[in-house]
């Protein structure tokens, strides 16, 4: 069954948008692990059950007792002015929230935003929403692009409401030493939420009443403890632009899909699609090994990394080997590669 929260699918796709199989997998919501299993490959990329459990526990700790810990930390980081701002919990009931399913969460989120846009009756000036759920308009993913926001801070300004996006992660905040890839991935997620919110507001024509801040925040853990560490003032503008560009690309591809592909045997559709191996595949795709073997078999230099593919500009691995071993070059590109190789061997 396809996953409904599309954030992971989207991130998977952005790691290698050139791979048709990856694109289809993201659009149709079919996990690559499932495709790999259908192909007879043992899936090895997966999340630790303890890490998942820890994530749930950390979120539960933050949001327990009407989110007192979360609100205190947000106030300390200057994201909300008053720690007594109310928390509206829109998470699913199975993880401790108040909504039965994603549809209900989405409906309640929309209704909350509608209230912001249309009525003046909302008394407190700041709200903290946990698990706000939106559908990104358009047809970028099938059947629909649903994203669940970990934290959304809604602040009343003089003439409009401002939405500030927050993302909860359990990895440790080590100041300037915090894992850059993990930070980049979290910012990318938050950027998608900024873009999604902007799209919803535009579709509902609430642009005058509600604005989405380009600045968001991340909630990480302090190393070795369960205490949160808030990284405020995260600029998400360019991540939101990246999401917009990528989702537009996905939308165009999704529009070209035939309905038959969508409805019948989606795993087979992904299996039948062509692949384009890249170095990044190693980090997320269970079929990476198979694709790398295929690249080596066909002499695709991407098998030795993206830099090699970029440097050799379309030369096959066998031709590269010939040039390195002294074969005469046929054109300028081959001459360049041979010259570089000759320079490199001089003092090795």
């Amino acid at each position, binding site marked *: 069954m396809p996953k409904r929260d599309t954030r992971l699918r989207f991130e998977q796709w952005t790691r290698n948008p050139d791979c048709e199989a990856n694109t289809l997998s993201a659009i149709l919501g079919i996990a690559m692990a499932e495709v790999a299993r259908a192909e007879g490959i043992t899936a*090895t990329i997966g999340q630790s059950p*303890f*890490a*998942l459990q820890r994530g749930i526990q950390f979120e539960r700790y933050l949001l327990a007792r009407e989110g007192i810990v979360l609100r205190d930390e947000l106030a300390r980081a200057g994201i909300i002015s008053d720690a007594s701002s109310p928390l509206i919990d829109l998470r699913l009931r199975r993880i401790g929230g108040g909504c039965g399913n994603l549809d209900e969460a989405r409906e309640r989120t929309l209704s909350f935003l509608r209230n912001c846009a249309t009525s003046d009756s909302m008394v407190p000036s700041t709200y903290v929403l946990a698990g706000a759920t939106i559908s990104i308009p358009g047809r970028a993913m099938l059947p629909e692009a649903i994203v669940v926001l970990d934290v959304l801070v809604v602040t009343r300004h003089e003439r409009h409401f401002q939405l500030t996006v927050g993302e909860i992660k359990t990895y440790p905040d080590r100041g300037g030493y915090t894992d850059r890839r993990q930070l980049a991935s979290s910012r990318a997620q938050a950027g998608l939420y900024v873009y999604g919110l902007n799209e919803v507001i535009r579709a509902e024509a609430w642009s005058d009443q509600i604005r989405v801040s380009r600045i968001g925040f991340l909630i990480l853990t302090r190393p*070795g403890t369960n205490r949160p560490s808030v990284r405020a003032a995260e600029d998400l503008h360019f991540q939101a632009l990246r999401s917009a560009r990528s989702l537009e690309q996905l939308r165009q591809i999704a529009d070209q899909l035939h309905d038959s592909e969508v409805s019948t045997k989606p795993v087979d559709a992904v299996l039948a699609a062509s692949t384009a191996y890249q170095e990044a595949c190693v980090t997320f795709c269970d079929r990476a090994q198979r694709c*790398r073997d295929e690249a080596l078999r066909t002499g695709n230099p991407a098998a030795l*990394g993206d*830099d090699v593919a970029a*440097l050799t500009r379309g030369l096959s691995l066998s031709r590269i080997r010939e040039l390195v071993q002294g074969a005469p070059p046929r054109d300028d590109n081959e001459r360049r590669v041979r010259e570089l*190789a000759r320079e490199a061997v001089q003092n090795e």
Partner: protein
Amino acid sequence: MNERETIRTLLAFSAGKPIPKGTRLLLPRRAPSDTLIIAFVRMGGESRPWGVALGKPDQEPTLLVVPEPRDAEMVAQMLEVMVSSVLSHLGHPEYPGANLYPNIPLPWQPYRPPSVWLPNATHIEMLHFLAFRYTFAKRGEPGRIKALNALGRACDWLFQESTRPGQLSCIDASAALRDAFSFPVEPARLAHTGYLVAWLTGKGNFKQRLRQASKAESLPISTSIDPALERSRLTTLLKRYKRAQRSADAQECSVVESRIRAALEPELARRFNITATAYTLMTNDPRPVVAGVCELQDRTRESHAEYLKVEEHLLKNGTAWIASPETDRNSIRAAAKYVTLQADTDLARNARVHDDASFRDDTIYAGDGICGDIVDVSKIPEGHLTRPLWTVEERVRHPLRIREGDDVVLAGLPGRQGEVISIADDGVTRRVQVMITDGLREAHGPLGWQPFDKRWVGRSVTFLSSRETGFSYLRRKMLFAREGPGIWLTHQQKRRESEVGEDDDHDG
């Protein structure tokens, strides 16, 4: 990855196996008795260790495991066991190690810098986690907390060392192998030490070695355990352990604990053994160590002495300024650290560039060097002196970062320095005039002729941009000066003489 790195990947592919990178090694060879290997495993999502392996590379490791890594007390008890091994290796005054030179009085004994090897970057990260967790920890049995505080500071020093260019104390095994060899694989796979070791120890052609390496790659080497193992065995065992703990069933606790130990010990041992193999590969490499390693050792000694000074101060007075694992806390200190890092970067580069021809070529390729033939040796007046002026011609192959007025140094003879007077470039040939300013006397070796000597004409020479570390050290000194323009602003922040720090002993 620069183009030369990429082309080395192609050369390795053509050879069908990893190829040595450069003609010299940067890491000095250390005896197994002078080396400590530490490897960790941790539970997914946690930043405390679940188990630790530590020991000398030629001995069986000590394996420490706790049944429940989320229990802070259990982890603290486990780590207390490793305190003496780690601190005595670092020469901590309270944990003196074995005296290897009993006949030599202590002050005259040869300096043995610490050498701690870890499997890869995730294990070095764990040192930082431990520093965060224990440097300022306060709760718990006082004796244990004191030992763990010392462990936290030691881990922080090791972690900070690992980020310093040219350091020799905290070695990431995968980085050491990457630095010494080029592998015919994608850079994304190069963090897996087991994969690299399998490439280096494997036999056969490219395909056979690739198969062996891929097999090694399927076994994790980072601090995280394979999620499949966590799912299949450890989840159930931990549930059982929790149940037994709740019902105070000591026998069941002990049974489950031994099963958890049985699941984790092979994981720890594998990480330890791979690191030991990486250490052996580096130690047995026939390439000589760069001549400039002495300067790197001196710098390591200086940094090590700073760490020991704090520890001695703490022992004597019970208080000292302790660096926070998270922040410099003071802008001047941060600035000083920055310029010191710049100096260390230059020192590491200088230690290598005169001795390692391949590294020198990388430097020239990056635009920081001129390599050509001397076409003229003449004289140029400078004040009341006359200086030698060399005209060097080189074929233009890549852009040049060196500009007129820049200081340069003769590769292979660091004492001979000069200033670039003019650069003329017609797209094919580059003509550079260098006035020799230092090293005018005759020196030993093939580059030793006096610079006025006409025999230089026709000789091939390499000039590299001069990166003197002295200026950075001078800047560091200037930062702490209490007189001069602008100090009313830069010295506004009060400097604390001791650091108390925040205790993070709350688990929520």
